[in-house]
């Protein structure tokens, strides 16, 4: 009864527009209040206790630092440099700027680690330019929204840091696990964009001269090194993920203040303020989701879900299929962080017991939730692009359907061929 009330409060309040973090908190709070009417009620003090204990973790400190590094990258004009480089690289191939959008997002994914940040940064630059070239605006938005889903799969990734912190999985292994799936996503979306553009005869850009290619490469060279610094320092055992995030901050700081000289200290303070506030919003969701997940596990939601799934089949492949369906469904209606934070403590023990690697399941989970970012009604990437392009969400989704189907195919591949995820993780950071 308590569990049903908690789930009901969560769904109703998040759908009627309460801030997601508070909707989850209210569901947990409702549980605690209602439990006081039972013989052994859960102590109310659990609520404030977990609001602090749930965030008191060194690895979570990496998240505002990665967001700060992303903000500094934007302020120092790195997005334009990357778009210019991608344009020189693939602008002449059929699809022109649409291909540029896919490539630019792939490169950005190695720097920022957030799908929303990538969608906003590349969308702002490319959507108006694509409109000028004659692309349908909804198609331009769909390409950018879909291409940005690769952000949290390719390292560094805020989602992987969170998952690593909550489930105590090696963040380095999760980062490595995302590389091949991220590359497959990129190749699939690039090929799809090319095919759609050929069918619709979308425009191409003039082939860049060797000089232009060289100039654009030199312009983007230092930002292109950022992922190597970040991932290399973690994989090489030089730094923890949090320290690697701080290295990323100072690397971008040096780029903006010393190398490009287009950023003053006022910009740095402003970027830190924006990053602090936006990561705080994420942390509210993280804190309340942990209380919710704790209560859900206590109320045996995991066992209920497990028995329901096992009643259908005890075959691990069928169960993975059901888990994918569940995550895709929830990803359509909820913001991805709470889905991940609430489902992880339930799904990881179930699949761990069946021999599924935590890194494999982690990548499958994040990929699922990324697909949720381009599906209505609550696809955040669609909303961001809708705001930039001033086109309706459903109109954008209509053009994003082929990408949605392609990403589902990638999801199936990643789910049923675990070696694609584990090969690099085991090679670079073997399990001790």
């Amino acid at each position: 009864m308590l569990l049903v009330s908690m789930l009901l409060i969560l769904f109703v309040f998040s759908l009627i527009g309460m801030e997601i973090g508070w909707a989850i908190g209210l569901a947990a709070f409702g549980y605690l209040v209602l439990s006081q009417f039972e013989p052994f009620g859960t102590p109310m003090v659990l609520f404030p206790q977990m609001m602090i204990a749930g965030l008191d973790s060194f690895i979570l400190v990496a998240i505002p630092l990665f967001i700060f590094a992303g903000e500094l990258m934007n302020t120092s004009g790195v997005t334009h440099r990357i778009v210019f480089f991608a344009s020189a690289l693939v602008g002449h191939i059929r699809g022109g700027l649409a291909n540029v959008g896919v490539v630019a997002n792939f490169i950005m994914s190695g720097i920022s680690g957030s799908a929303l940040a990538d969608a906003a940064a590349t969308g702002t630059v490319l959507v108006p330019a694509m409109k000028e070239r004659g692309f349908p605006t909804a198609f331009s938005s769909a390409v950018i929204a879909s291409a940005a889903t690769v952000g949290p799969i390719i390292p560094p990734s805020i989602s992987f840091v969170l998952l690593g912190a909550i489930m105590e999985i090696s963040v380095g292994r999760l980062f490595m696990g995302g590389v091949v799936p991220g590359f497959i996503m990129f190749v699939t979306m690039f090929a799809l964009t090319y095919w759609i553009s050929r069918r619709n005869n979308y425009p191409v850009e003039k082939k860049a001269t060797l000089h232009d290619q060289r100039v654009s490469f030199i312009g983007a060279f230092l930002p292109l090194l950022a992922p190597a610094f970040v991932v290399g320092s973690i994989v090489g055992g030089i730094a923890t993920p949090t320290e690697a995030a701080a290295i990323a901050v100072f690397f971008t700081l040096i780029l903006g203040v010393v190398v490009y000289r287009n950023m003053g200290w006022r910009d740095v303070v402003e970027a830190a303020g924006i990053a602090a506030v936006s990561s705080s919003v994420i942390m509210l969701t993280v804190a309340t989701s942990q209380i919710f997940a704790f209560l859900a596990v206590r109320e045996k939601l995991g066992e209920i879900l497990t028995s329901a799934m096992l009643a259908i089949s005890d075959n691990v492949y069928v169960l993975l299929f059901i888990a994918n369906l569940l995550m895709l469904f929830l990803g359509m209606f909820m913001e991805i962080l709470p889905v991940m934070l609430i489902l992880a403590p339930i799904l990881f023990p179930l699949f761990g017991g069946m021999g599924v690697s935590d890194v494999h399941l982690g990548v499958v989970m994040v990929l699922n939730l990324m697909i949720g970012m381009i599906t209505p009604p609550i696809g955040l990437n669609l909303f961001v692009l809708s705001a930039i392009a001033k086109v309706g969400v459903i109109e954008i989704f209509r053009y994003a359907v082929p990408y949605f189907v392609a990403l589902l195919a990638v999801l199936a591949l990643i789910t049923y061929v675990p070696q694609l995820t584990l090969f690099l993780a085991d090679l670079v950071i073997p399990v001790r």
Partner: protein
Amino acid sequence: MTGSPKPDGVLARADILLDRVLYYLSSLLLMAIATAVMYTVIARYVFNAAPLWAEEAPRVFFLWMTYLGIAVATRRGQNIRVTFFVEKMRPKPRFILDMFMHVCVLIMLVSLLWYVWPLIDLNLKGTMLSTGWSNAVSWFPLPIGAALMLLYQIRLMIVSYHQYRSGNYTGETGGLNEAGGD
């Protein structure tokens, strides 16, 4: 910012000043975290001696930054929310629904403030291992953040009420709507 008080009154000026102080404090704390963590890396590889406070201090700063930042986000309407369905509602039911949600959050915040004190009391007695700071330093961000959020929720309700009375209630409190997250 939609519905903000006119900046000529004392209260309105105090409102803006508090917002700026909290915003720049959050910014300062994040820069302090970045510097402390970077210093740790340098100290470990260059001076061959990582400072003892390397993990503890950034964690405390992070908690302070988070709860001050959430207060700023509440003031600026930057929290993550889904407005897809409520946008289709007429102003009156939407206003009632929004007010109901504000009251729910208010009750939750008051409860947080009430139940956090025993925890602070308990932690006042202990100190952290490496910094020697009181354990309560990690707990104070919650009541301070909750009190600020309480203040801003009330402010939000007043602004919404004035918007509704003047016939231009949109449910927008300024800032982002469906943004945030990952």
